[in-house]
């Protein structure tokens, strides 16, 4: 026991967790905390909006596989964080958010900048808590990190009333905390593994769908080994991009609403479908009825509640993906030799792999095609570069046409689909990985939402590249209006958007507009060597659609391929 103020206990607790960066923005009730942070053994990155701070922490968490930390003041600071933690939580990213709160005595009096953030954040966090005593701060921090970073990862919020941080009390720092109701289940049940392996060994048309759980578990190598042994073609969900190398001969690419023809045709044809570390949202399955009509579905996930939630399974393996896949391979190898189950299936797989990425998309002359821009970006970047995306058309072009070869090289707001995520997240990624180029594939609509993060990037020396696929439109909504609302545009034209080049320059960043692929490639190569962030403005056709698209409610095989 040592006597110290809550602020000191807080900073020491973060140090003990190995925190290197805290992303945040101060305000009235966290001034004491910010004062003590000056003595902390970590960097405080000043955001310009709390949502941006949370996205930075999220990007940092995804890039490191560790925990990202953000800090905000009470009231509006705290509510601004909510979108950020909801985004992180939805994508199983370990973010711990600390919010200031009014003093204990004033809670409930509707005091200045008081908001019930525990109530507000309950639905979008794995756990949340309000600390009631200074001496409880170390335990609260330890609990938050433990819950956020174990089992299925997620966001945790810790609310700190101001007087709790300023009180001086006897404090001790626990090494672990025991939680009676929290037992993450890593080790799969051997009987479940055996049963699933029996099904896989007998499969004639096996297919694997890999999700973000593979990346969180670090199970890519195990995944590739099992798929190669079974010769099973493998699709990924949006969150699973990078879990299976895009240049692998068994890779089918993205499955779902904007999936490749290969994935969307072969997944429904499977006789045994292994879902590994994916939660099968509507965007991945299309109509559930026609998702895997003839398949025995095996679901491997660390979160038991995901099994049978959206798609009914024949058997489950509950546990860590890497342990589960290793167990499956071991058991399958006892039951059958490696290689093809049926030569017709491999023939069909290679047929479809030829037409992976869809075809025409009816863009106007004089504009660059967005898919070509994305492919050129891939060629201009080193293999280990990291890409984040915004949300909408730019995100789907990136998902379809940007080949990710390794886990943790492609990050996107998949679950919540938060516009404005990619840019601040890229800054968080850069903090974690200063050694590699970090590029945000953006649209002008999304970029506008968190563009003020540029100030943080400049002053904190965290240079990233933003490629703005600029159609002066809320492009995905416009695409739906063209396809499903009789071409009636409503509230999608962004005529008043700023000049992206001048905008970048106003921040002291570099801005460049390109209208040829050669120019674009050169701009990317320059930008990744620059000491400051660069915005590359790429005008594209406002009428260009993302294809393929599975219309809402339709089955994966019923994708529209072109206009």
């Amino acid at each position, binding site marked *: 026991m040592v006597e110290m103020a809550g602020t000191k206990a807080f900073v020491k607790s973060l140090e003990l967790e190995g925190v290197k960066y805290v992303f945040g923005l101060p305000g009235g009730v966290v001034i004491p905390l910010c004062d003590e942070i000056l003595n902390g053994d970590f960097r405080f990155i000043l955001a310009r909006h709390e949502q941006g701070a949370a996205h930075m922490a999220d990007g940092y968490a995804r890039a490191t596989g560790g925990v990202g930390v953000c800090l905000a003041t009470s009231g509006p600071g705290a509510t601004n964080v909510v979108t950020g933690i909801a985004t992180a939580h939805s994508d199983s990213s370990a973010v711990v958010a600390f919010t200031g709160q009014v003093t204990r005595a004033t809670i409930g009096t509707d005091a200045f900048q008081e908001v019930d953030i525990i109530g507000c954040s309950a639905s979008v966090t794995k756990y949340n808590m*309000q600390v009631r005593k200074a001496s409880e701060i170390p335990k609260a921090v330890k609990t938050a990190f433990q819950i956020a970073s174990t089992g299925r990862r997620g966001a945790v919020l810790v609310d700190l009333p101001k007087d709790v941080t300023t009180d001086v009390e006897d404090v001790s720092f626990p090494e672990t905390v025991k939680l009676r*109701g929290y037992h993450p289940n890593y080790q799969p049940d051997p009987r479940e593994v055996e049963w699933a392996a029996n099904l896989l060994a007998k499969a004639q048309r096996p297919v694997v769908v890999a999700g973000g759980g593979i990346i969180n578990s670090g199970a890519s190598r195990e995944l590739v080994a099992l798929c190669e042994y079974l010769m099973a073609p493998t699709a990924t969900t949006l969150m699973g991009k990078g879990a299976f190398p895009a240049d692998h001969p068994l890779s089918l690419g993205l499955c779902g609403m904007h999936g490749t023809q290969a994935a969307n045709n072969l997944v429904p044809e499977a006789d045994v479908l292994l879902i590994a570390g994916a939660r099968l949202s509507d965007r991945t399955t299309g109509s559930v009825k026609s998702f895997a009509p003839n398949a025995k579905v095996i679901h491997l996930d660390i979160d*038991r*509640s995901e099994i049978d939630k959206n798609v009914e399974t024949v058997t489950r393996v509950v546990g860590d993906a890497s342990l589960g896949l290793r167990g499956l391979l071991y058991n399958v190898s006892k039951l059958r030799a490696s290689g093809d189950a049926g030569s017709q299936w491999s023939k069909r797989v290679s047929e479809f792999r030829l037409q992976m990425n869809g075809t025409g998309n009816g863009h106007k002359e004089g504009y660059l095609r967005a898919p070509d821009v994305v492919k050129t970006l891939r060629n201009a970047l080193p293999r280990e570069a990291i890409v984040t995306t915004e949300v909408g058309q730019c995100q789907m072009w990136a998902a379809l046409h940007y080949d990710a070869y390794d886990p943790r090289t492609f990050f996107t707001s998949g679950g919540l689909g938060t516009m404005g995520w990619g840019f601040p997240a890229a800054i968080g990624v850069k903090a974690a990985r200063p050694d590699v180029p970090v590029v945000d594939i953006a649209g002008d609509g999304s970029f506008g939402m968190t563009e003020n993060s540029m100030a943080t990037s400049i002053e904190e020396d965290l240079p990233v590249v933003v490629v703005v696929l600029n159609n002066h439109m809320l492009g995905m909504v416009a695409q739906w209006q063209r396809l499903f609302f009789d071409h009636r545009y409503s509230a999608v034209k962004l005529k008043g958007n700023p000049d992206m080049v001048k905008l970048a320059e106003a921040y002291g960043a570099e801005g460049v507009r390109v209208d040829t692929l050669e120019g674009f490639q050169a701009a990317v190569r320059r930008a990744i060597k620059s000491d400051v962030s660069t915005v590359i403005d790429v005008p594209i056709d406002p009428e260009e659609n993302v294809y393929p698209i599975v219309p809402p409610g339709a089955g994966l095989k019923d994708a529209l391929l072109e206009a």
Partner: protein
Amino acid sequence: MSEMHVVAFLVENRPGVLFNISNMFRRKNFNIHSITAGTVLDDDTVRITIVVQADARGVNQVVEQLDKMVDVIEVKRLDPLRAVNRELALVKLTTTDPMAREEALKLVNDYHGLILNIEPDNLIAEVTGESADIDAFLAAVTPIGVEEVSRTGVTAIEKGRLKLEK
């Protein structure tokens, strides 16, 4: 097919836990029919019994979603054949008419109830039983005149050696 299921669970006795649980039910579109809660042998643990209307897959999801919550220590769907369910109702009956009072006392007696309070114009009866018994009692006393009803919702416990804690 959608039917009533009894789910019993133990939670940490911590501020906000009940809110988190009811919030999860709302978020997941589960339909709570009744909920009862109280501390058990120690003050750190609260036992909650929820009656939920769902099909088989739905009730499985209820159990899994509860199990996933950090503050939920144990959770189980109780097998109706291997558990005892009880509910308590307080019923205020109009008894201005002496014949009605006579009839009310007889019915309370038939249902093994107690009379807790008697006023010139009304009385308060306490009846305990399975939900269906309470429904039947209420149906029987309705012609006499029911002024007010307060029901606790179901609480339940398993038979024999079965119990919630491992």
